[in-house]
């Protein structure tokens, strides 16, 4: 068999990589440097991230991310759908925190409509969002530790993630693509036994986090790989648009849940973990503390939900806004009331018109600031939906964090910024 050469064009071939490196502005062909293609099929890139690295020995001279492998044109698709039909699309943007995407989109459209959401729906949204944050952080911890070589962590994290998946399945019938939130509230009343399941999960979670920390925090290999690696100063983080845990790990005390509250977050008492080190270790510490804070928020939400007044018939309060032309009626009403049937038919076939205007709604996703910019021209379909996703901006800081470090540290840094390619490429 003839040896494989550059002329065989294995995609991406050697020549492609060098051409790419030149196009991305890297010298690529210096006397002491070599160009290395990393990804898109690389286990540590958490999806299909491709990087063109210029190396001097094992030292990273420059790094250019090449993205777009997962581009599905979600923003374009949104423009062809009714407002309520966009909700399932938002799940697919950041598939590790579907509820957060749902929330950001629903809040944006509700702001356009000027819709008031019942307190019970708001509290349930907060509760599910915080469980989503724990779930997303568990995926981060499992995969990040696996990249570094602590393979056992993955199994422990997936064990607890299974519990959160079951909670999502109970409310929405889906484990990952939940589409549980609706414009005006929530899709369904949580099933029987839901709150008991959540309570059990919340009661056991702090002990599990202790277990993770027992395996990692004092571990000399873990410390050696993480401490002092991939540092980012506060000024650099702000200049490069970094948000969320990496921003807080660089010493900027900013959390949208506390500083620009939405969906009733102003009523919750929680701490925002901040670290001044700015390295991979600091990001690990911040996220571990965030999981504990999320458990605290969930406990408060459960208490508030329990304390809500019940109706005369003993039933809990509504989970959707009183807006029959926007929110689908429940099945029972639809089959007994003519009005409800008409509204149902109208919403499904024609959608509902949204007053013209533009809004930007940002929420704190597990990865940082997730903003939905929705423009309406007064019809039933959004004129433009833009998603400002945290990973997209954080990826710009990758070169700053990796430059001058060893190639092996690139893997640790990518793990620490917790990117999701679905939301980068959209």
């Amino acid at each position: 068999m003839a040896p494989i050469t550059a002329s065989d064009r294995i995609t991406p071939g050697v020549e492609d990589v060098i051409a790419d490196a030149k196009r991305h502005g890297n010298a690529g062909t210096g006397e002491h440097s070599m160009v290395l293609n990393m990804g898109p099929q690389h286990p540590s890139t958490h999806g299909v991230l491709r990087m063109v690295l210029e190396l001097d020995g094992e030292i990273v001279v420059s790094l250019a991310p090449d993205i777009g492998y997962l581009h599905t044109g979600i923003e374009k698709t949104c423009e062809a759908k009714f407002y309520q039909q966009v909700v399932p699309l938002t799940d697919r943007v950041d598939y590790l925190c579907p509820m957060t995407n749902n929330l950001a989109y629903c809040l944006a459209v509700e702001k356009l409509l000027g819709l008031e959401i019942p307190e019970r729906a708001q509290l349930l949204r907060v509760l599910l969002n915080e469980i989503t944050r724990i779930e997303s952080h568990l995926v981060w911890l499992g995969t990040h530790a696996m990249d570094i070589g602590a393979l056992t962590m993955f199994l422990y994290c997936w064990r607890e993630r299974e519990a959160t998946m079951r909670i999502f399945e109970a409310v929405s019938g889906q484990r990952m693509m939940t589409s549980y939130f609706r414009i005006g509230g929530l899709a369904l009343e949580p099933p029987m036994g839901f709150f008991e399941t959540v309570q059990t999960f919340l009661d056991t979670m702090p002990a599990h986090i202790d277990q993770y920390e027992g395996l990692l925090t004092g571990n000399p290999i873990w410390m050696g790989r993480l401490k002092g690696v991939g540092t980012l100063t506060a000024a650099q983080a702000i200049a490069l648009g970094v948000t969320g845990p990496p921003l807080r790990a660089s010493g900027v005390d900013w959390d949208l849940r506390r500083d620009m509250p939405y969906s009733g977050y102003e009523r919750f008492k929680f701490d925002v973990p901040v670290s001044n080190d700015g390295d991979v270790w600091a990001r690990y510490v911040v996220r571990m503390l965030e999981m504990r804070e999320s458990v605290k928020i969930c406990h408060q939400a459960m208490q508030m939900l329990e304390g809500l007044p019940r109706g005369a018939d003993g039933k809990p309060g509504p989970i959707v806004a009183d807006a029959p032309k926007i929110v689908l009626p429940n099945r029972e009403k639809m089959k007994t009331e003519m009005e409800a049937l008409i509204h149902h038919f109208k919403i499904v076939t024609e959608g509902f018109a949204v007053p013209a205007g533009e809004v930007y709604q940002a929420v704190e996703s597990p990865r940082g600031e997730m903003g939905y910019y929705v423009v309406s021209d007064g019809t039933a379909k959004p004129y433009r939906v833009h998603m400002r996703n945290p990973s997209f901006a954080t990826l710009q800081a990758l070169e700053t964090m990796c430059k001058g470090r060893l190639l092996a540290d690139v893997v640790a840094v990518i793990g620490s910024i917790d990117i999701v390619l679905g939301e980068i490429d959209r």
Partner: protein
Amino acid sequence: MYDPASALTGKTFVFEAMAENPAVVALSELATDAKFDRDELTITVARESIVAACEAVKAAGYNFFETVTAVDWFPQEPRFQLSYHILSHSLKQRIRLRVMLHSTAASVPSITSVWPAANFYEREVFDLFGIDFAGHPRLTRIMMPENWEGHPLRKDYPVEGYR
């Protein structure tokens, strides 16, 4: 429910009603139009003055660049609307800067000199809308393949793509 009468439109109205707002103070010269709608402040500036406007609001405390994106109002003219979202950590406020572009001159100065974070966002707008950012360090396609024809998020580009 939203009441369209609650919106303030026009530079004079908005700038009188929000005279103490730091962004309003900073942009009193550069603004050409303004809107305060649904608790969100939008200030329109001319294409040439976007970099100066960004520097002015940055000096006024709006330290964090969030996103820039475009809206295609095809077949209306001016066709493209650029929306810059800028956040202030200290004021806990957000403003939207707006630039309108004619389809014949779809080019705007890059603000990467003010916020390097705009780099990827401007590349995205260039890729999907075909708007040029003068002075951008590496203005290449970011989402679509390099040899792609057309700009998918333009309104005259079909949702299914060209077949």
